[in-house]
């Protein structure tokens, strides 16, 4: 089974709901090692993204709408990073009516590469890259083993959550948390957390859209 524009739209809706629910939690994480705005910024962005995703007849169009909304509404570091991620993902699947397993993997990889290109963070810098990179690797591995879209996204979500937890002991070297030096250790990165939420939401939606036989 594959994902079409409507299924993707429902997934974006679901992520907007999750971000709204987790808004204060994300703010709290950012309060500890940043400037206490990650949840608010992303929530503002995802509300706009939900509207922007309403039109668009292909997955690429939906993703592009989300990208534009995030770029123009989020601000901060997360706005351009997530915006670029969705924009690159859109480009990666341009022309497709539905997303098959290989498309999903290509979109995830493009998203991650976009974030790295913009933000220049490396693995271990305590950023969202620490959730994205293991997620993409897990998705690729699952796809090589012939997994379904839902299985691929579940593997990505599991890896992202592990990556998110792995940020806790790290000393930040990029973004606002890096100003804290050693004091950033012991706190989970907010961007890695919102990334894990995104991938978990996509996995859950995929499982719901394409129930295992």
């Amino acid at each position, binding site marked *: 089974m594959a994902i079409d524009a409507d299924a993707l739209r429902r997934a974006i809706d679901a992520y907007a709901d999750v971000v709204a629910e987790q808004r204060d939690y994300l*703010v709290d994480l950012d*309060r500890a090692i*940043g*400037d*206490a*705005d990650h949840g*608010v*910024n992303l929530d*503002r962005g995802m509300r706009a993204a939900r509207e922007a995703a309403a039109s668009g007849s292909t997955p690429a169009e939906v993703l592009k709408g989300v990208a534009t909304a995030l*770029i*123009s*509404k*989020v*601000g*901060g*570091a*997360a*706005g*351009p*990073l997530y*915006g670029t991620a969705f924009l690159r993902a859109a480009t990666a699947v341009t022309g497709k009516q539905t997303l098959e397993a290989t498309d999903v993997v290509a979109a995830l990889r493009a998203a991650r590469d976009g974030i790295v290109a*913009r*933000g220049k963070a490396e693995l271990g810098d305590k950023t969202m890259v620490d959730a994205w990179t293991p997620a993409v690797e897990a998705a690729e591995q699952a796809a090589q083993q012939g997994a379904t879209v839902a299985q691929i996204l579940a593997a990505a979500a599991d890896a992202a959550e592990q990556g998110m937890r792995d940020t806790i002991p790290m*000393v*930040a*070297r*990029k*973004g*606002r948390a*890096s*100003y*804290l*030096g050693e*004091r950033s250790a012991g706190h989970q990165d907010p961007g890695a957390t919102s990334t894990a939420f995104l991938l978990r939401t996509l996995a859950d939606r995929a499982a719901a859209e394409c129930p295992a036989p």
Partner: protein
Amino acid sequence: MKKIINNPETVVQDSLRGFAAAHADLVEVHFDPDYVVRAQPLPPGTVAVVSGGGSGHEPLHAGFVGTGMLAAACPGAVFTSPTPDQIHAATMAVNAGAGVLYLVKNYTGDVLNFETAAELAAAEGVEVASVVIDDDVAVQDSLYTAGRRGVGGTVLIEKIVGAAAERGDDLAACAELARRVNSQVRSMGMALTSCVVPHVGRPTFELGDDEMEIGIGIHGEPGRERLPVEAADQIVARLLEPILADLPFTEGDRTLLFVNGMGGTPLIELYLAYGIAERFLAERGIQVHRRLVGNYITSLEMQGMSITLLRLDDELISLWDAPVHTPALRWGV
């Protein structure tokens, strides 16, 4: 949380509305996307100096829009860099044919959003140059961080480069001057209390009744060190020593000394600190030729201060002295 506001979600726009009403002779405020431009258009053929950043640092940046300083400012949400569409709209509004200079404080968000805006402007044929400001010596290992933050030096750079643009310097010269001033300016800040971000409603960090935070930024980020509160003499030394060591400033240097309040510290304390700082420099043979004391780049209602020291030369002095007429800085007009 105690603030004179209606709704945490609309603080920035509500405040901009009052700012627009209070300074209608000097500025024009546009909403959605939000940006502030001069009431009088730039003389054709002059470089438009544009800055912006998260709100909560007032009067920065909107308070510095006007003759002899900024052409436009882009206020983001509280402590959140503005979005590319704001910056782009401001850019197109103020471009007077000689290009646009972005003065960007070095935060990942600001840098990325201004970068995107510059791409949008380039796509429409507007020449844009960007200079990133990073004067905060509190951030030590630039290699292992997002780099030094842009703090108090921003005010001085906006004033000096604004004066150069006003006298007709071209885009390359303005950008080069901005880089030169940035290379000659160093800052460091401290806090006695945290600020409260409106939509969060609680202090960003918790400080004990006898604690202070040294090396803070301007976004309520905690600093690098938490210490027992000390006397003003010690606090000033803790800020000035790393500043002097870093450039380094040396005997005989002529400087501009800027003692800046974080928003909740009253003038009585800022002047007290200024006096100590000037004596501290005098004892080391460093001459203070120009000065600025007050709340110019703030962190909401945070109590605390930052000290900024700029090494001057004749050109910088004359550009600093040049007329300026903005809501927050005014002289010679």
